[in-house]
């Protein structure tokens, strides 16, 4: 009879998985349900935050960190849903078309400001189809190289790249990835052209950098700090105005003589345009509370980042940032002649 009871367990497991997938499927098709036009009773049902990238990635991690304290403040359950694809444009497009009732929220990063330049048939317009809720965090990036790469400083790197343009290789995690954008900005800032080597994701790119197969790349601290502190890769600079706490010896790009290379993977929350203002305010307030949460601050510190100042977790500050970034990237991407589709 032992087998019979095990069989029972397995059957129940199947059922459970089936139910989970069905529920997830339904959520994928809408997840918004009925919500009144006025935000008086908001929220009276669970809120879905769509993450347009895979579970376990940096953006997903940040979202899940703030979801808990936000839910506590709002007094409603928050479900984090991953809708991957095409550099985050699939998930963003889904939220753009969702009911503007505040129950479908998008977490997106710098990709929101680069998508219009990268994708020809985007299906949404960042400024028109979305209402900004507030900035969340700005993850610094690092310029790193294989450990036996000749240049010792960022200045050396620029000189070396200029002198050896036919040999040097610059890795990135694929078109539109943060590492790709940072690489483009490096080339603009340094006035050089480098042979780029795209990979499918950060993992393989970093593997080849550690293995010495490619020369250098620029990626988020989340991905690189472990390798930097272990001495597996050489760090030239962090791309933010301030040094990063977990990497105290690494200079900023400004200190290292390349101030124009300033970039961070900024994250923000969005709702579809047409969402009542009082609901946007409630979400923004909850975001502010979450970002002040000590646990969130600690967790972000471990990722080598920090919550944005309270003043930036507002719809206005977020919109200003989005407008500014759209302008920056439209030019950089057009100059580089890059197209994602």
């Amino acid at each position, binding site marked *: 009879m*032992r*087998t019979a009871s*095990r*069989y029972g*367990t*397995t059957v129940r*497991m*199947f059922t459970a*998985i*089936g139910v*989970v*997938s*069905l529920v*997830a*499927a339904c959520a*994928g098709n809408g997840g918004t349900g009925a919500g009144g036009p006025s935000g008086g009773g908001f929220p009276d049902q669970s809120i879905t935050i769509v993450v347009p990238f*895979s*579970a*376990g*990635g940096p953006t*997903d*991690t940040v979202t*899940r960190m703030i979801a808990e304290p936000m839910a506590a403040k709002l007094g409603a359950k928050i479900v*984090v849903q*991953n809708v*991957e*694809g*095409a550099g985050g444009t699939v998930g963003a497009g889904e939220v753009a078309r969702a009911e503007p009732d505040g129950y479908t929220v998008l977490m997106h990063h710098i990709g929101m400001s680069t998508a219009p330049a*990268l994708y020809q048939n985007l299906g949404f317009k960042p400024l028109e189809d979305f209402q900004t809720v507030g900035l969340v965090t700005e993850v610094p990036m690092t310029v790193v190289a294989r450990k036996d790469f000749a240049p010792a400083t960022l200045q050396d790197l620029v000189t070396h790249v200029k002198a050896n343009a036919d040999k040097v*290789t610059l890795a990135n995690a*694929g*078109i539109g990835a943060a590492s790709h954008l940072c690489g483009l900005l490096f080339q603009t800032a340094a006035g050089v052209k480098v*042979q780029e*080597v*795209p*990979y*499918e*994701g950060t*993992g*393989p790119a970093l*593997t*080849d950098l*550690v*293995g*010495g*197969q*490619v020369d250098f790349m620029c990626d988020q601290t*989340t991905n690189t*700090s*472990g*390798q930097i*502190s*272990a001495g*597996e890769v050489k760090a030239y600079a962090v791309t933010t105005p301030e040094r990063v706490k977990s990497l105290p010896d690494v200079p900023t790009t400004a200190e290292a003589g390349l101030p124009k290379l300033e970039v961070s993977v900024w994250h923000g929350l969005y709702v579809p345009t047409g969402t009542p203002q009082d609901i946007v305010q409630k979400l923004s307030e909850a975001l502010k509370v979450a970002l002040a949460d000590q646990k969130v601050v600690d*967790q972000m510190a*471990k990722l080598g980042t920090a919550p944005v100042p309270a003043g930036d977790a507002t719809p206005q500050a977020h919109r200003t940032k989005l407008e500014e970034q759209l302008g920056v990237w439209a030019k950089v991407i057009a100059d580089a002649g*890059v*197209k*994602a*589709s």
Partner: protein
Amino acid sequence: MELLDNLALGFSTALLIQNVLYCFVGVLLGTAVGVLPGIGPTATVAMLLPITFNFEPVTALIMLAGIYYGAQYGGSTTAILINLPGESSAAVTALDGHEMARQGRAGAALATAAIGSFIAGTVSTVVLAVAAPPLARVALQFGAAEYFSLVLLGLIVSIALARGTALKALAMIFLGVLLGTVGQDIYTGTPRFTFDQRELYGGIDFVSVAVGMFGVAEILRNLENEQTRTAIVTKVKNLWPTREDRRRIAGPILRGTGLGAALGVLPGGGHVLASFTSYAVEKRISKRQQEFGHGAIEGVAGPESANNAAAQTSFIPLLTLGLPAHPVMALMIGAFIVHGITPGPNVITEEPALFWGLIASMWIGNVLLVLLNLPLIGLWVRMLRIPYQVLFPMIVLFASIGTYSLGFNAYDVYAIAFFGILGYVLIKCGCEPAPLLLGFVLGPLLEENLRRALIISRGDASVFLTRPISAVLLVLALAALVVAVLPTIRKRREVVFTEED
């Protein structure tokens, strides 16, 4: 004696009651999703990752790892029973495993898979404990040029997967490679063969192809005539491997384990190659070549062991260097980060309990898998007696739900139907789906690495020959091609095989 101290630390961690419990939950879930066509370990780990946020880091990683290798284990079950591989590795097991099931020897096939996986799991746990850091260093020697040559060798070797002529197998491999090119080019973003359908931008889903070409095509073939229709098998022979079987599987299990353990370490896709390289090796050295494809137990023992060994050693780059070998490992990196552990080479020294606990848990997980699966064999085999009117629609239904739940993309379900019909037509033409599937899996790897190697070398193709590892692999590939194709060109392949016996 440092090793013993470390293992003691590992087992004292892994044997904590909550860790054993979640290890069990992990392998149970893994077995379940492995058995269920469609949902794979990647989707499951992604779905469950958030649940583990409140666990201790080591407990979370033990459970997530259990899902991964448990799924490798469970994947063989449906491949053997109903010719429905959920993963590329299981596609190889389906070749002889399902033939064995049709001959009433499903029990022996399932037991062989279980025993082989257990032995492989035990050996690779030892490998992980003894030699993980140096192995990871060796793996880093592999760049794009080496991977290209390795994948090319793998593709040529996969001709051995076919029962019929090498030429038809080669044609199927090419078709598979072509199907693998559908979707956005990763280097330029240009859509290829997408016919302006946005759903095709991400490429064709592997699960759709596997479920269609194997499962659905098999169903269509079964529906052809009255005799085979009633149920897949009516008579079931012995549930356990006979003495003769046990003698025959010992060598393949050990060779498969060695091969799998070595290939699994390579972060650029070595684990994909493990199971069918083992199949090809066993077929090549076997005295019973004609039995392969018709229920040779070696064809189950070798690949299953290789697959499980590779699944476990693919943790080496992750644990020792913080570098993920495949999407499931990338999710594990996410798990590290969420728990405040910076993935990187320092994990071994900074978190010894986590590193050794995870390794020890893999062995415990393998014990649990055997305890879980051996008693189930009797039940699984009885499933084959379910009348086809019930079984076939169930298979199609579960496969469709599973595939749909991966990306909520109805296209993936249409693709099952398309590849089911294509698979049936191909079977009618004497072409087999296994080489196509391998071409489909390896094609994108081949292209990606070919182009990357050429980008890095600025278009100089001599890198493939000037880099020693790559050159050796290319020579082996050439030799394998000559051995495989020459007999066909002379139209003497069949004759040669009979003569050899």
